């Protein structure tokens, strides 16, 4: 890699809808709501937008770009839909950032939106036209529980201790979620409730799994040099890295089911791009892809926040709590927001943006300088990972 995105582009406006089971809102409503907030926040008008990127997973019309241009009536500008598993919204932002960094555009829009709850299903719809149904029939909780089974076995963690560790992850996020007005779930849950909840796929119980929600988020990106023209507190993009696995972990015996290789690789690339040498000390906060408690847990090691085998100690010591050394999921994460696939990555960045600007109300962290987002798609043996780093200062 010869170039770096660091300090080349800035976010000058963001919007995020309420997340939840939004029975009274359509995908069009969500797109308009998120974009409108972003325009107002940036102090721009829609007619100023020169190009747009749309993150969405479930649209199957094949009209891709029109699924954003239509709802917003964008006037004949280039619009590209990006779909990259659960990291869809993050990748939309990455592509938009590159277009601005290349000097082609100086004001672009990124929107991520997903309307899942119209499908009438519990969980996420999975439809593979090229497998003839010849696939193991587990759900997402099943896939991710395999990490925990292996982790417990490898590190000799008893079922009770393992459940306790995972419960702390969800307990902390639920506590944070109470302070997030836009979250789907805003209720504190006790450790006991979490541990005793019905098992979905051992050791993952109900509270170890994130919900399924509708939602949308949007960002407006400009060249870093122009950022202060729009506002005093723009947020600079320091790194937008991705690691896409070659679908190897379920085929090769080399994969250990103790970590997610794409996360480890994307993190290394992101730290290099942003010039971060000691992630545990330099990263002030993180929004990671906590689709399940075990996912967040192993991510702490893959992001080098904890050493290998050390996540349990860090989690249980409160290091990742809101008042800990490296707060993770200050907004409550997927755990409280649910996971509208095409929107989640931008929702994470929205929280970093607000925190860095000091506008996170009751969740506000003390003086965070760098924030990291980690957006995961796929399943442990082969993931698509986005790692982004954002800061409020240049340099």
């Amino acid at each position, binding site marked *: 890699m010869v170039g770096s995105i660091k300090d080349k582009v800035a976010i000058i406006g963001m919007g995020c809808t309420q997340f939840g089971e939004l029975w009274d809102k359509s995908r069009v409503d969500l797109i308009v709501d998120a974009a409108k907030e972003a325009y107002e926040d940036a102090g721009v008008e829609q007619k100023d937008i020169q190009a747009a990127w749309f993150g969405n997973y479930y649209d199957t019309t094949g009209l891709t770009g029109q699924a954003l241009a239509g709802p917003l009536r964008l006037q004949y500008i280039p619009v590209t839909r990006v779909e990259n598993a659960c990291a869809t919204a993050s990748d939309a932002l990455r592509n938009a950032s590159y277009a601005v960094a290349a000097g082609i555009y100086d004001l672009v829009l990124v929107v991520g939106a997903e309307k899942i709850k119209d499908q009438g299903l519990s969980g996420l719809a999975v439809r*593979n036209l*090229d497998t003839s149904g010849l696939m193991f029939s587990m759900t997402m909780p099943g896939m991710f529980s395999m990490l925990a*089974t292996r982790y417990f076995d490898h590190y000799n963690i008893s079922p009770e201790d393992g459940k306790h560790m995972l419960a702390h992850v969800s307990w902390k996020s639920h506590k944070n979620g109470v302070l997030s007005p836009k979250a789907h779930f805003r209720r504190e849950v006790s450790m006991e409730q979490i541990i005793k909840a019905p098992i979905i796929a051992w050791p993952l119980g109900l509270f170890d799994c994130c919900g399924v929600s509708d939602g949308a988020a949007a960002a407006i990106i400009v060249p870093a040099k122009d950022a202060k023209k729009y506002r005093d507190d723009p947020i600079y993009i320091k790194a937008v890295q991705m690691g896409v696995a070659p679908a190897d972990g379920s085929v090769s015996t080399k994969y250990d089911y103790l970590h997610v290789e794409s996360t480890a690789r994307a993190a290394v690339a992101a730290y290099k791009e942003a010039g971060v040498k000691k992630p545990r000390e330099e990263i002030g906060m993180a929004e990671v892809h906590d689709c399940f408690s075990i996912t967040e847990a192993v991510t702490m090691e893959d992001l080098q926040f904890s050493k290998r085998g050390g996540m349990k100690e860090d989690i249980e010591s409160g290091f990742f709590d809101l008042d800990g050394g490296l707060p993770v999921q200050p907004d409550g994460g997927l755990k409280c927001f649910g996971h509208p696939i095409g929107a989640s990555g931008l929702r994470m960045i929205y929280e970093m943006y607000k925190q860095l600007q000091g506008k996170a109300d009751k969740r506000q962290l003390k003086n965070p300088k760098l924030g990291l987002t980690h957006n995961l798609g796929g399943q442990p043996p082969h993931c698509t990972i986005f790692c982004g780093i954002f800061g409020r200062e240049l340099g």
Partner: protein
Amino acid sequence: MAVGIVSYGAYIPLHRMPRDIFQKAWGGAKMPGERSVCNFDEDSMTMAWEAAADCMRGNDISKVDGLYFATTTTSFLERLGASILATALDLREDIRTMDVTDTLRAGTTAVAAAADAVKAGTAKSILVAAGEHRMAACAGDFEMALGDAAAAVLIGSDKVIATIEGSYHISDEFAGVWRAEGEQFIRAWEDRMVYDKGYSEILEKGIKGLLKKYDLKASDFAKVVYDTTLETRRHAQMAKQLKLADDQVQDPLFDTVGNAGSAHAMMMLVAALEEAKPGDKILWASYSNGVDAFILQVTDQIKKLKERRGVKNHLSVKKLMDNNDRYLRWRKIVPLEKSRRSEQSPVSIANLRRDSKVALALYGVKCKNCGTPQYSQGGSYGYFTPLRVCVDCQAVDQMEPYKFSDKIGKIFTYTEDRLADSNDPPTTVTVVDFVGGGRALFDMTDRGGQEIKVGMEVEMTFRKLFVDRGFHQYFWKTRPIRF
């Protein structure tokens, strides 16, 4: 040329239903013993695969010139079961295949046809596999009396363990038991008449016809192996009709398996061969719409045949079911509430045709450059297309075929998923590292009774995955090693 049985195999499902559970559920008369019950993902095809694989263990599959599949419970009325089975068994392409069906005599009729082909010299060996999972409506004799099972014999002229010395056949249109096109459950005429005018009369006639034709006496046989009815009284009475000594009568497997239809006589024969000594003469007869009766002569070669899983071993490893509800659910007799989960991805015949060996014979590849075996679940959720780029060394187009179906695996990690839509929750999925290399994910079946653990050994088994628009899709699952 001495033509006869070269090898044998059998299969009995893991699960057995004590018959008193039916009686407790529905009332009515009691019936002693237990019956075998297919798991929800088993049918006549998958059981026939098990029996045939047992029969072929240690034998060269490339030398088999034909496969006859005998059953009255085919999954397809139009699409050859024997060809699906031949693919799953990885037999050659240039073989003769045939489904023998519509009669509970299908197993013996298929053996007669196979023996004739070998005798005629048009085939050197033919594998005959019989599997049966007949459906009985609730609260009746059939439900209690039937059993699900499969058996297989390899017919040939080399290394014959029991030569077929002669046969006698009767055809009889009698409608004692029947099932018509479009009907799920078996029907029967009043049982006393069915037994008096059918089994007891015609079977005796067939066996005596065989003895007369070859000028033999019943006492010339070490074992007399013949079908049973929906109980054992008529079977015992037949022994008297034929003036057999107690030790000549082969156990009808009724109290342990139940009546396994077209596979039953072959199951009993396998059990007889398991105990047979060189020089034994065996009389083997099957009854239904007439009789097929054979004289078998056991040879010295039987001592050289390695122990099979057969009937004896399969009988000894079992799991007793403890309620009727599970039986109803597994047999899909009661409608279940539709899951509010995502629907099964639709079948693509084009895709399955292209990947026929990958799906049905569990073929993966092995990299000639680095030697790594790999099964082709390459994509995000399991994309069944042969791999062209090596997962370990990234060499392109350096692959040779590699079969996983006969490999033992170890569980690297697993899940018991209570959310997934399943006929037998929790859905258990295993990440399997194969001995010899390679990893893949498969559903696990027949897991009841054993605690699943990381490091546990598993074997591959051929099962039915689902039915999509009338298309029965078979695939592979792991199961705890049964023996």
